[in-house]
């Protein structure tokens, strides 16, 4: 069994670009097993692109990415699929399958990867729906019949379907009401404690950062300029980091702690 604290995601010298538009250059980042790492950065600094690159949805233009200690890009298709089951992803806009109900969306990975009875799948889907704080009646609704915040939760439920080792979340609390967002923070903490889950969390939500993250990585100037705890962030005198963690909103969020 893998040890807590060992690196689970390693990004070295990553370069990505779209045409001539370089998004990342010489980006290094290590995420350890069992931690919640928050990725912050201004809009358009490439947080979502970094997440997609780690997932293998975009090819890096230079550099290496290792997840679970393996360079997945080098594996044959079949083996890579096996490893891909070990993570769950919540995309920025939910990315639910519009032709399926919420329950069916959650059951997609069960159907594809496992042979479970329909009874068990229904039961597990219902548990996941309850876990993310949706009403049970949401199970039979289609994504277009849900509100934006509810779609986020449904996307999270699908990401949790296979009880993954790593959870990639792209702005999970955006669009959630404050109560829902707080419940989300609790859920992340509980899952981390109970399952040793590693969470790669892209967020602008300062409350979530405070409540859940063990470490924070700041993305700016095309690479990770600082990785550390909240206290490290507060001490940094990099202008953007200072602005971010000492701005009026940050003070309000910190004051609550």
């Amino acid at each position: 069994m893998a040890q807590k604290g060992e690196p689970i995601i390693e990004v070295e010298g990553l370069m990505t670009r779209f045409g001539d538009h370089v998004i990342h250059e010489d980006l290094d980042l290590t995420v350890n097993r069992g931690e919640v790492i928050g990725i912050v950065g201004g809009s358009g600094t490439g947080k979502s692109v970094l997440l997609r690159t780690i997932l293998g949805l975009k090819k890096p233009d230079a550099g290496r990415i290792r997840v679970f200690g393996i360079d997945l890009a080098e594996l044959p298709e079949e083996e890579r699929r096996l490893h891909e089951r070990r993570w769950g992803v919540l995309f920025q806009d939910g990315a639910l399958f519009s032709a399926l109900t919420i329950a069916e969306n959650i059951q997609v990975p069960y159907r594809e990867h496992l042979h479970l009875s329909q009874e068990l799948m229904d039961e597990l889907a219902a548990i996941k729906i309850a876990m993310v704080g949706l009403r049970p009646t949401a199970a039979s609704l289609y994504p277009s019949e849900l509100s934006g915040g509810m779609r986020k939760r449904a996307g999270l439920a699908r990401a949790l379907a296979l009880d993954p080792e790593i959870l990639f979340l792209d702005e999970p609390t955006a669009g959630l009401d404050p109560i829902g967002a707080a419940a989300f923070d609790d859920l992340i903490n509980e899952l981390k404690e109970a399952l040793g889950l590693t969470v790669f969390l892209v967020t602008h939500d300062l409350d979530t950062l405070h409540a859940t993250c063990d470490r924070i990585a700041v993305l700016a100037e095309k690479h990770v300029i600082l990785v550390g705890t909240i206290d490290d962030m507060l001490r940094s005198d990099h202008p953007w980091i200072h602005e971010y963690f000492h701005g009026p909103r940050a003070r309000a969020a910190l004051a609550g702690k």
Partner: protein
Amino acid sequence: MLRIAASGDWTIAHLSAADGELRSLTAGPVKAGRAVIDFSGIARFDTSSAAVLERTARLLEEKGLRVEFEGVSEPQRRLLDKIDTYGTPDTSKAPPAPFYIELVERIGVTTREIGEEARGMLGFIGTVVSAIGRTAANPRRFRLVPFVHHMEKSGFDALPLVCLLTFLIGAVVAQQGAVQLRQFGAEVFTVNLIAIIFLREVGLLLTAIIVAGRSGSAFTAEIGSMKMREEIDAMRALGLDPMEMLVIPRVAALTVTLPLLTFIADLMGLLGGGVVVFFMLDMSPGVYMSRVQEAVDFWTIAVGLIKAPFMAAVIALVGCRAGLSVTGSAESVGAMTTRSVVRSIFLVIILDALFAMFFTAVGI
């Protein structure tokens, strides 16, 4: 005493067999008394397994057993408590209705839908006409750029396909006609056959069907995906009129291009026929042309071209309306696109039949 000893990896990947066993255990009769679920052999554990074990414990308790968990680690305990707070998930579904009821229901639903659809289409035509009226009153609101763009896409870009297909059909009709008419020694009338059939009917019908497949479907898919991504709502919220922005340019563009395409299709059909006649009947191009002239009068061509704008309007309206009826899912874009093509081809043929009756009545 009932003792359930769990061991090894209790994760979702290995859950299927264990779940089956536990289900049959809880479904069958059990002796009252004490039950122990032993966790100490468990290596890995996840929420799904917690859910299954919680359910097992709950079902056993309902049968009057006292259930205890043994050897539960702290994280496992927390997970079990968490799952417990969600209670029994209600996974019951409404039982499916018997087959005959469903049959009647589907007939009823479809009939109602046809009625509603007809009403909706009439309403839509009304909306478009009133939007056209507004545009006519204020011609500067007409969107010239999309109009030209759609003329190019649905007209100019369709030319190669329309030319090729009508040329081939013209040739086929001529060849079949010549073979049949030769039996009466009347093969010279092949020319009349091609000229009349193409100019009155086939040139237009073929073109309309090709355009319905190419452009009607494109209209539905374009407008449908915009609807799906709430772009139409965004337009309305910005005070823009989707009718004016999306529907009128398309309807206008097709109404202009379909007659033009039809005219070219007619020429290509005659050309195809001419080529066959030249080889099969040794008829020189000059003779062919003068025979065509004899066979055709003004109304033969006019009958074909008069129908074209009406069919164009039908294709464009059906396509746009289907696009605007798309609901949230990607599947509905596909369903609506299919429906729009089927419906516009259907209506084009119905319209053609109505026109045939009309022209017969007025004697041309």
